[in-house]
């Protein structure tokens, strides 16, 4: 019953405020419980999917395209797995850091919104109906606006407002695109549209719809020229929320983009009818370089991580734009990996802020004396970010490079290498500074266990999946099968 994947968090989100009336601490445990239940449910569903194939659910018993349909297939089950996992992990982490950053009487409502955000992104991933997609995008966006505005500094408010403006423009573009598409095909169900769109390849309506849908999603995805909202939003939000956004927000948009490109429109439409891939490839490469370069210019740790996310999003779109099986596998893998790695890095940044109240990199001299374990895991995740073999980061980059070679775009390789170097530089900066011991020896002050454990789990997973890599690779292969419809 895949409908429960949404219902559990939704109902949790609704009843959390009621628990809040009873006790201010209770909502956290309720959230944790539902997150865990949901994770288990997702895992079981995914198991079923991978053995028995795609599963569909018709709401109200009205068969598609007349009713709203939920589809879980190889592609979105992998996304579901990573999202629910990261949500669970970050919820474990969130207790202490939120108790520090948010005053306690506001925690119940905060957790309610937090779970609503989760509901929204799950809905985006799981739905098979294009208007339903819009509704859930709005749920996720609205809650994230507020959650970002809950940040401590007053920059948070402005960041949230800018995100709101741009996000609303993006969502409205998506709505317009849906309108044109609906007008051209008369249907709202993705699979149905895909069937009906074939004779309409040359219709101007369809092309406009395509333009607006992709544009709106790129805004949500913060692809390079449209990234302006992302860095502030990520760095001024409460630490846990920033981590959650970095781990899931853009990934979900990337997934939605893949869905739109390959399951609503068809691959030959993207490739042959319109010169989409060339443009998209160009944008992605620019994004990769620009993101890494801008990250180099930052002194605030969280901001640096946020800018590096912009570069990493470039990788994901790069794989999409090369659009052969290998590169798409690289893309899906990178969605998975980057969610893991960047989530972990943000958690560590949040931990440093929690213990020492510093965000600026150059104030972190000799921090490896004070938080040795955190820095050790930071190094591990850094290696994964630059694509060191034995870490998951390697897999995605490797597949992207192979994909680029497959279609003979050799110039992609140096760009990937250069950006890896840049990311090495801007991440290693911190490691180096933290090794510097020209400061008076301080006692160890690590972050509390409930914040440490998630970091440990993520880092170990980064290495484990990098070594025993057949798990992510087989999952992503299933996903690519779905994308290319074979």
């Amino acid at each position: 019953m895949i409908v429960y994947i949404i219902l559990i968090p939704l109902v949790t989100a609704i009843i959390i405020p009621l628990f809040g009336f009873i006790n201010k601490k209770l909502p956290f445990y309720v959230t944790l419980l539902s997150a865990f239940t949901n994770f288990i449910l997702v895992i079981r569903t995914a198991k079923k999917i991978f053995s028995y194939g795609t599963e569909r659910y018709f709401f109200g018993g009205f068969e598609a395209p007349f009713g709203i349909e939920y589809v879980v297939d190889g592609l979105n089950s992998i996304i579901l797995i990573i999202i629910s996992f990261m949500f669970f992990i970050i919820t474990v982490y969130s207790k202490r850091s939120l108790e520090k950053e948010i005053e306690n009487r506001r925690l119940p409502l905060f957790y309610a919104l937090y779970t609503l955000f989760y509901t929204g992104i799950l809905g985006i991933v799981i739905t098979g109906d294009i208007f339903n997609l819009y509704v859930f995008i709005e749920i996720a966006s609205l809650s994230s606006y507020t959650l970002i505005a809950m940040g401590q500094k007053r920059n948070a408010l402005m960041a949230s407002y800018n995100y709101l403006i741009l996000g609303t423009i993006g969502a409205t573009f998506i709505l317009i695109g849906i309108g044109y598409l609906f007008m051209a095909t008369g249907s709202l169900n993705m699979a149905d549209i895909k069937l009906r769109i074939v004779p309409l390849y040359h219709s101007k309506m369809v092309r406009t719809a395509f333009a607006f849908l992709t544009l709106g999603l790129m805004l949500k995805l913060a692809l390079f020229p449209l990234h302006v909202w992302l860095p502030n939003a990520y760095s001024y939000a409460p630490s846990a929320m920033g981590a959650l956004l970095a781990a899931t927000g853009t990934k979900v948009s990337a997934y939605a983009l893949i869905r739109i490109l390959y399951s609503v429109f068809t691959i030959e439409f993207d490739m042959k009818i319109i010169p989409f891939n060339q443009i998209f490839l160009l944008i992605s490469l620019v994004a990769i370089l620009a993101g890494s370069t801008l990250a180099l210019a930052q002194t605030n740790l969280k901001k640096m991580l946020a800018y590096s996310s912009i570069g990493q999003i470039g990788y994901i779109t790069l794989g999409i734009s090369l659009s052969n099986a290998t590169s798409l596998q690289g893309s899906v893998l990178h969605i998975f990996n980057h969610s893991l790695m960047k989530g972990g890095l943000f958690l560590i940044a949040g931990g440093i802020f929690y213990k020492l109240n510093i965000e600026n990199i150059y104030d972190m001299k000799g921090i490896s004396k004070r938080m040795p374990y955190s820095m050790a895991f930071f190094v591990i995740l850094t290696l994964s970010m630059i694509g060191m073999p034995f870490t998951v980061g390697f897999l995605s980059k490797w597949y992207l490079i192979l994909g680029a070679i497959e279609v003979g775009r050799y110039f992609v390789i140096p760009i990937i290498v250069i950006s890896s170097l840049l990311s090495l530089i801007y991440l290693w900066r911190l490691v180096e500074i933290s090794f510097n011991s020209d400061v008076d020896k301080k006692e160890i002050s690590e972050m509390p266990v409930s914040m440490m454990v998630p970091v440990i789990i993520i880092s170990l997973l980064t290495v484990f999946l990098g070594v025993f890599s057949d798990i992510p690779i087989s999952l992503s292969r299933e996903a690519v099968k779905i994308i290319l419809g074979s």
Partner: protein
Amino acid sequence: MIIEFITRKMIPFIQLYALYVVAHGDLGPGGGFQGGVIFGTSIILYIIVFGMEKGKRLLPLKITDFLGSLGVLIYAGVGILCIVFGGEYLEYTKLPFKNPHLAAHLGIFAIETGVAITVSAVMVVFIFDIARKKDV
């Protein structure tokens, strides 16, 4: 003075109309959302005329917050009921009534009520919290 009198007399009718709109969503124009907004508007009107304090006494904030959640809960709950009675989510016709049409009517009425409760509560919250000058 006069305004207060008129409002006092008017508000019940507005609320009655709101209920009508909610109830007759399946026959004529209107439905839970519109009804909810109108109901909320009646309270907003009350607040505008008699001031925030009286308004709060009429409808404490805790209640509105609670109602806001309750409405959605009703909606989701009806859906789950449909599953319990062997249908898909929100498949009203499977509800245990003597004929599917009646089931559909009642189910839809239930969710419309849910929508109406949430909407009216949230509308009131909007006014309470956005229009409130000082903390009350």
